[in-house]
């Protein structure tokens, strides 16, 4: 274990134990320390004693804080009691007020409609930032962490900075009984992002699978050829039934091996939402009148003070945010370029 990893583990374990009410005297990662554990923490860790030695080195007994062992297991159990949803407020952010019309003109391209600026008003928007831990398990394993932020009002994904890193963050009381409706959309975005970032892993699995399939097919084809050529002893005529039976057996074995190969490479993806931050932020809502043929509708776009930009409009079909917007004929709902093209085909 490198020194950097040890230090990371040391800092994390100390904070976690202290947060759960333990007294920790563990000055440095390369030294041994002591922790006084409250009964519920000792229970979660599976320790009989309430005063235990703690160290990154596993050999000393007590709590071993390393990546092997059971550290991540008991840390996970301790974290079960720690809230995973945060509610905050951001105040006093700058809101753009001038030249909104021009700004919209620069940000958006209206593909098939006339769009007029109607009015702008100050409002508050809740941004939901979801963190996911994602893993792919096949013949090999790959994992990553992902962050997806959505404007809860528009449902559009926005790229805002990590809210936990913002100094303006103020706690806010929120009654929270069930997961907010942004979850399915966030999960879908995370899923796509995961598959994008795992591209090289997936390519690798594809290459290996194809190579293994090829090898198996060649091998069993060669076996088939051999069984066809095989001459019985004593110069007798080959028995066609026996040849057929041998072929069937080889074919069956090939299919079994190919199926086994497919099973071996099948990928199980796990997307685990680990933290949600709900950040209420002042924003500017700008109402737009959209004229498409003889229909007309009002849509709202948001000016986001965290990135100081307009946010895209969400495509009504695929949910993607888009700045190049087409509108449906009768409903005048926004469409991204791709969905619009698909609809017109």
């Amino acid at each position, binding site marked *: 274990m490198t020194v950097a990893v040890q230090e990371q583990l040391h800092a994390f374990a100390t904070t976690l134990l202290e947060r759960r009410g333990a007294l920790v005297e563990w000055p440095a990662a390369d030294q041994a320390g002591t922790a006084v554990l409250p009964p519920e923490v000792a229970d979660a860790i599976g320790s009989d004693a309430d005063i235990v030695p703690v160290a990154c080195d596993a050999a000393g007994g007590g709590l071993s804080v390393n990546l092997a062992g059971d550290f991540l297991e008991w840390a996970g159990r301790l974290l079960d009691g720690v809230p995973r949803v945060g509610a905050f407020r951001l105040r006093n952010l700058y809101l753009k007020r001038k030249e909104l019309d021009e700004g919209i003109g620069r940000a958006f391209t209206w593909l098939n409609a006339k769009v007029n600026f109607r009015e702008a008003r100050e409002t508050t928007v809740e941004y939901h930032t979801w963190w996911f831990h994602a893993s792919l398990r096949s013949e090999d*394993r790959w994992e990553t962490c992902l962050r997806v932020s959505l404007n809860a009002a528009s449902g559009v994904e926005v790229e805002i900075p990590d809210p936990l890193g913002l100094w303006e963050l103020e*706690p806010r009381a929120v009654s929270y009984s069930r*997961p907010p409706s942004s979850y399915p959309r966030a999960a879908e975005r995370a899923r796509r992002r995961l598959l994008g970032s795992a591209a090289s892993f997936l390519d690798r699995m*594809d290459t290996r*699978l*194809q190579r293994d399939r090829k090898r198996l097919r060649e*091998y069993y084809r060669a076996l088939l050829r051999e069984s066809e050529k095989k001459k019985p002893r004593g110069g007798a005529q080959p028995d066609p039934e026996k040849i057929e039976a041998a072929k069937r057996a080889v074919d069956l074995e090939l299919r079994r091996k190919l199926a086994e190969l497919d099973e071996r490479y099948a990928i*199980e993806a796990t997307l685990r939402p680990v933290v*949600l931050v709900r950040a209420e932020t002042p924003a500017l809502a700008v109402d737009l009148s959209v004229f498409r043929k003889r229909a007309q509708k009002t849509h709202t776009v948001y000016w986001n003070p965290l990135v100081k930009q307009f946010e895209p409009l969400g495509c009504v079909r695929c949910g993607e945010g888009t700045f190049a917007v087409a509108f449906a004929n009768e409903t005048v709902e926004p469409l991204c370029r791709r969905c619009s093209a698909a609809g017109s085909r």
Partner: protein
Amino acid sequence: MITRLAEPAFGVSERQTGGETPFRTAAGIPITFRDVPPPEGLSTGEPGLLRLHLEYWQLHLLRDFDQLLCLEGLTGVEHLPHQIETVRKVLRRFRGRVLLADEVGLGKTIEACLLLREYLLRGLARRVLILVPTPLVSQWREELASKFHLEFKTPPRDGKADCLEYWQTTDRVLVSLAFAKSRKRAQWVTEAPWDLVIVDEAHHCKNRATQNWRLVNALKRRHLFLLSATPVQNNLLELYNLLTLLEPGHLKTETDFKRQYVRRGNPRDPRNRERLRSLLGEVMVRNTRGLVQMDLPARYAQTILAEPEGEEAALYASLDRYLRERRAPLERIGGVHPTEPAADDGEELGSVVEAHPYPDEPRDALRADDRPPLGRRQLSTLLLAAGSHAGALAQSLENIAGDDPAARPLIDQARRLDRTAKDERFLRLLRQSRGEKMLVFATFRRTLEHLQRLLTEQGVPFATYSGAESEIEKDAAVAAFRDRLPLMLCSESGGEGRNLQFANTLVNFDLPWNPMRIEQRVGRIHRIGQTRDVFIFNLCTAGSLEARILDLLDEKIRMFELVVGEVGSILGNLQGGEEFESLVLDLWLRSRDEGDLGQSFDSLGQSLLDAQEQYLRTKQFDEALFGEEFQ
């Protein structure tokens, strides 16, 4: 198929099937998403608490392959650089399908266990099946548990494993190949899916026509490790068969293989040697002593026979009469009485005698009264205790005396013995030792206690290292032995993984029946870092079972002169499929008298010699085939 993805950047498509939407890669590998529900419960206004969760999951990402996880938290495992290198290589290059063919004694088992641990820790494997020759089951189980903290289940012999449910619901199974391939079970073993299968002494699967090969071939498994120091025994086709288990087609078809690599008229001498070696290098790792520069100094063993006299001789004679009268006449019976615990919680000797030892006698003939016969475990414990020391024997007899008053006079007899012939020989050895540091092994706790008393009486300072001591006390014992004390008393597991190479003399005050355990004891000082020749003294009472075992191991196969690990390969070649200690007990059970027993041991000795010859032939062949510098 609906291709919903607009941007095919990652070459993944979606397909709607029923309620779920599996993705597929370009080559058609299905990607199934497992849903984990989103967080619920109270919210917080404290960013620090949320960051803890994020840091926790970031820690999971630190487990890249540059950093082996399996090395952390191990106790008593001395992993060597070539083993670590092998683990890395298998993880990176071999994709979990490999033939580990290190020369004997270089630690294939350690490599396989490190890999197993790594696969488990990384979530690459959950369901694991380990297939080993019967004599090595207990060795594997102990190593997995004590060194790698991995508990494996060995299927019960009572029929519970004769169904699919057992194999599907038991995630970690350690079983003998003989048990798994039985007609009653093979179907279930092969029907259950396994993430990882390990086959030790895989040369037993060298022949495609055998049930061994067919079983391993039929197993549904993601990863496969084959372990064999001697993958080719008679014919290159054996290697072909083994590698076909790993990667069918890697060496093309058998006909192709013969045409390209097997010399006509001499199936042991390969053609196109370089090309073959290069192909083998893609699926096989072989470390050699030459390559890893691991040559150990010589070891010398001496058996010291102690002749019992007077009361001691009378005790052994009475015990022999008692045990022969009380032995179980029929199929095996488990222990009814708790027996004397061994110094490290005892050893389990409990396999089944399939046949009546005296088929021509009525089944009840040996039972003199209504007292229940002694079970196998009780018998073996009593025999082992007798071979250890009178104190251990007295305690073991005490444990059964409640049910069998006939044992009482023997207890009194054993208790009366203050000094045994073996004690005297041990003390004489101490006087001759000229200050060399001496590691003294004893199996039973009572024997260790007796030796402590004996040494104290003689004014010999010593340390004790056993399961009864705490970790701190053990550390102190080793330090004292290294720095100032001439002698350390050790229980069975004493000092495993500790650096005790500063000593070069070992005394077996008693002797386990399993040669692998004897080898483990010797391995405490005959290991990397030992610079001097090693001397082993085996103390045993003349006429005891231990003396007969020693005669087999030392005189017949010259076990103490073998390279570390070779005895395992020889035992693996033994026909029959029983553990060695079980074989010994069977011989005793089947014998009517000492003459009978002597003949049986002669016959076992011949089998051992045959097994050794087979091993040596194969070893020579493999050395010629793979050379010193295979990698």
